[in-house]
């Protein structure tokens, strides 16, 4: 999906994600307590997750869609901390190596075209002792849930460029990360993950 497509979705994005945000609020607040240092927030969208951030963080937020970034404005301004926004593709960011202490992705790795390449790029900009924090949905290992997700993925891929059949845990490991915290938020589909680059 292109930046232009996300620009089109931006108008209804808050409505589409409203139910998810109500469901995920407690799990996100718990996960986001781990954010520290200089943070790269990948795929800010309209900034719905900002209300779940602890105050006082130093965040660089990126998104490939100008419309999404524009709509995140009020939430960024209301946040009690620093958020700087840039229009950038997560697969080819313009940051130097080892720039960030923490990289955060929220439902990003289901949308990028090449998730392993994206994760390798995130590893590049993450400091060697930094942490990748992910709140992502993945393909279920349960055959019934997995079948439904694969079936629905054809539709979501077409409508909003989201894949429901991604193996994000395996992709993170393929990109060279080591998962050290793995919590299921809903079934084995929505997950709160923390990973580190190899030592």
């Amino acid at each position, binding site marked *: 999906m292109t930046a232009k497509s996300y620009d089109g979705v931006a108008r209804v994005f808050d*409505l*589409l*994600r*409203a*139910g*998810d945000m*109500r*469901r*995920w609020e407690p799990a996100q607040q718990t996960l986001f307590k781990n954010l520290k240092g200089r943070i790269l927030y990948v795929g800010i969208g309209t900034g719905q997750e900002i209300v779940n951030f602890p105050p006082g963080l130093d965040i660089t937020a990126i998104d490939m869609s100008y419309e999404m970034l524009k709509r995140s404005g009020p939430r960024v301004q209301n946040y009690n901390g620093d958020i700087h926004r840039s229009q950038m593709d997560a697969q080819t960011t313009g940051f130097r190596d080892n720039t960030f202490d923490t990289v955060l992705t929220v439902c990003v790795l289901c949308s990028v075209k090449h998730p392993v390449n994206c994760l390798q790029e995130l590893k590049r900009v993450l400091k060697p002792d930094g942490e990748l924090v992910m709140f992502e*949905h993945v393909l279920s290992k*349960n055959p*019934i*849930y997995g079948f*439904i*997700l694969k*079936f*629905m993925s054809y*539709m979501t891929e077409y409508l909003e460029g989201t894949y*429901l059949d991604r193996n994000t845990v395996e992709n993170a490991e393929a990109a060279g990360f080591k998962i050290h915290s793995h*919590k*299921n*938020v*809903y*079934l*084995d*589909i*929505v997950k709160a993950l923390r990973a580190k680059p190899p030592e």
Partner: protein
Amino acid sequence: MNLKVADFFIGTFAGGTVALVVYLALSSQSNMFLTMVAGGLIGMALVLPLKILLMPFFGAFEVVIPLGIIGMGVGMTTGMLSTLPDISGYVVIAWGDLIGFIVAGIIYFSNQRYTTQ
């Protein structure tokens, strides 16, 4: 409304709706195998707009997973039930409601197991 309670209402509502539509569409048929297949297809097609309608309010995965199971499961079983002679539409709808409620319950306990691992 508490979202966990809402999940049971959604399951029951979707099950009853699929059962009603399948019963209205197939009650005049007599081949149990064909009505089972047709009921499953009608159920799967019917839950698609329901999913789109409910997802923004109740969460994408919490709607997609149960309705995916209910659409096919209730559609197939009510398709077969609809061929039985003298069966009331109310019984078929109650069956759909019951299956929808049970699916919501199974997913609730399945979720408890996954999230406490």
